[in-house]
């Protein structure tokens, strides 16, 4: 990947003529180097990593700055929460600012569960870190006999080099060290702290959503993420993680009733969020429990208001968990929408049948490959079940419904 471009030379007035959104066209001198981000190869937009490298690869290289990604939660909110934690952990490692909003538990609880990054080349913020580096300090004391040209190079990589790497790996079994976590600036929004007050001016929308939107805008203005403020060399990206938006704890009855009273409160909030993000250096990941929303048109509207939408469907608790065909995977991943940013074409992934697996050190997303039917017992049991799973029948050859295996 190309190295980040040099800093801004031209004054800010030139770029604010009509470039007041975060989608910057790739021109020679106007790209600024923000650690943890890189320009896209397709249309020059600034991308940040989601924390899951296979998701990055699948979805065009990363999250474009200024967009909203929607994650439709799985049934028990386990994997969507994990993906959100990856996103926030990546922000901590890249030294971005974080904004976390939760309704159920306190944002601090979510932040304490962030997975630990695998630090083989990340320089430490504290003196404890360098001992984890893979290079052995004892050998460095001796004079190098063969690679003597490298004698004088520093043994520990500087912080700038480490944070220019795009995408890190995390170890799910350990939580992030508090020192690393506290090094990142984090802003919180906890719904029970903002009780619904009687509003006289606004007839639409819910208080919790407008309070969230207001606090986001204040943060963007105060901390200088706004694109309208003059460019300086130290810009940073704000990562916004909104957990379980639209659930009943926000005061919204989208998930409870067939005909919600405030049907457009969440969609208006998403519209406002989109407006905020388009004009600032921030990126948002929103998880919505869409399996609780009965009205599919509403889910369609929510999807269209976000730039990128994926849905996670985990096998936990369903009969597929014990199905031998799916033993390699933890769930399916559906791409509902791919963004169309500054160009006519959108890059949907080529295959629609994607499955994910959460391993200790990696969250992999790959094409669903069903193993071939080799043994008699496997096919007899699984054919009946597979007939119901029509959505993933692309790779499997035995997708006919319950035909008897030919016996000779």
């Amino acid at each position, binding site marked *: 990947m190309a190295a980040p471009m040099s800093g801004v030379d031209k004054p800010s007035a030139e770029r604010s003529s009509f470039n007041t959104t975060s*989608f910057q066209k790739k021109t020679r001198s106007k790209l600024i180097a923000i650690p943890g981000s890189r320009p896209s190869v397709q249309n020059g937009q600034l991308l940040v990593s989601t924390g899951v490298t296979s998701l990055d690869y699948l979805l065009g290289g990363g999250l474009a700055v200024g967009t909203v990604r929607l994650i439709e939660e799985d049934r028990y909110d386990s994997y969507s929460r994990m993906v959100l934690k990856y996103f926030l952990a990546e922000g901590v490692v890249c030294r971005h600012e974080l904004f976390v909003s939760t309704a159920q538990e306190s944002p601090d609880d979510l932040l304490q569960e962030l997975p630990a990054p695998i630090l083989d080349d990340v320089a430490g913020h504290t003196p404890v870190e360098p001992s984890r580096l893979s290079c052995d300090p004892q050998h460095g004391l001796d004079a190098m006999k063969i690679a003597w040209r490298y004698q004088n190079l520093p043994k520990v990589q500087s912080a700038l080099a480490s944070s220019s790497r795009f995408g890190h790996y995390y170890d799910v079994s350990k939580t992030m060290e508090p020192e690393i976590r506290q090094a990142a600036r984090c802003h919180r929004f906890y719904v029970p702290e903002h009780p619904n007050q009687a509003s006289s001016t606004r007839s639409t929308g819910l208080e919790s959503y407008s309070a969230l939107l207001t606090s986001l805008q204040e943060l963007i203005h105060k901390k200088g993420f706004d694109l309208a403020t003059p460019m300086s060399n130290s810009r940073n990206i704000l990562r916004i993680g909104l957990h379980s938006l639209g659930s009943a704890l926000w005061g919204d009855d989208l998930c409870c009733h067939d005909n919600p009273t405030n049907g457009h409160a969440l969609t208006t909030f998403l519209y406002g969020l989109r407006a905020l993000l388009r004009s600032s250096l921030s990126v948002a990941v929103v998880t919505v429990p869409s399996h609780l929303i009965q009205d599919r048109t509403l889910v369609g509207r929510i999807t269209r208001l976000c730039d990128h939408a994926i849905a996670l469907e985990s096998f936990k608790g369903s009969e597929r968990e014990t199905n031998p065909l799916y033993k390699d995977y933890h769930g399916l991943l559906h791409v509902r929408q791919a963004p169309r940013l500054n160009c006519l074409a959108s890059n949907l992934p080529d295959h629609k049948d994607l499955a994910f697996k959460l391993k200790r050190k990696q969250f992999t997303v790959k094409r669903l490959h069903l193993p071939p039917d080799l043994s008699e017992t496997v096919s007899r049991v699984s054919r009946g079940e597979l007939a119901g799973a029509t959505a993933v029948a692309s790779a499997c050859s035995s997708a006919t419904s319950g035909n008897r295996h030919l016996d000779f």
Partner: protein
Amino acid sequence: MFTELNSILNASPDSFTQGEFILVTDRQSDASFLIHHFLCFYLRARCKVLFLGLVQSLNHYSSVSQRLGVSLAQAKDKGQLIFLEGLKDSLSVLIPQESSKASEAMDFLRDPAAGLRSLYQFVRSRLSGAADGDGGEEWGPPVLLVDDVSVLLSLGVSAGAVLDFSHYCRATVCSRLKGNVVMLTRCDGEEQEDEGDDEGPENLLKGLTHQCSIALHVQGLPTGFCRDIHGQVCARVLCWRQKQTDGQCTPSKLFQYKVHDKGASFFARGTSSAVL
């Protein structure tokens, strides 16, 4: 501007019928590439264009139009293009602040149930006021482009109010000012009957289809997702509205398309280059 689409619709920047209401709809796909086509088409035809961009920023449209050969910034400077950035203006209404002034066009967000009267006033003032000689260059007939109308349903406006708005715009722009109107509306899911549901996007779609004179329905392929053919477009021209037809118009044309970086290619069904 896609030249293949021009020949399919029998229109070109030099000669196109005036007073038309073109409706672009999509179902489970994205028809916004057609809006880019019409934007560049009417700018090339030297019409005065008012664009209500409710879902994307100006930068997005100008980047795409740059690739299609039209510069939106120049058109704006010359006064040919008036662009309403819905996203930017909506923030001042959604997050009320004392110091900022709210734009009148997005004022309906304050009370969406009341209707889109303020938006219509905005359209009328911008399009008809400038037609009475503003000393600048003389432009062609005015054109109103809306991208997209169904997002108004998400913001709380009822389908009836949106239909009223489109009717008023059509009466003003098409009949009085002899211009054109192009609207994009999106719906998803299969066709289903909403029992007594007044708010549904299906009702909006049916109402708009009734009002329009050319309808372009974009949908995905019925056989599923394909990398080389992104979908199909059904172009329906309602010929009986045109007084000067010679009886030789086909009721609807179906063709397939593929969107790529610099445009879109249209071809008859089954003649995609990937298949042949």
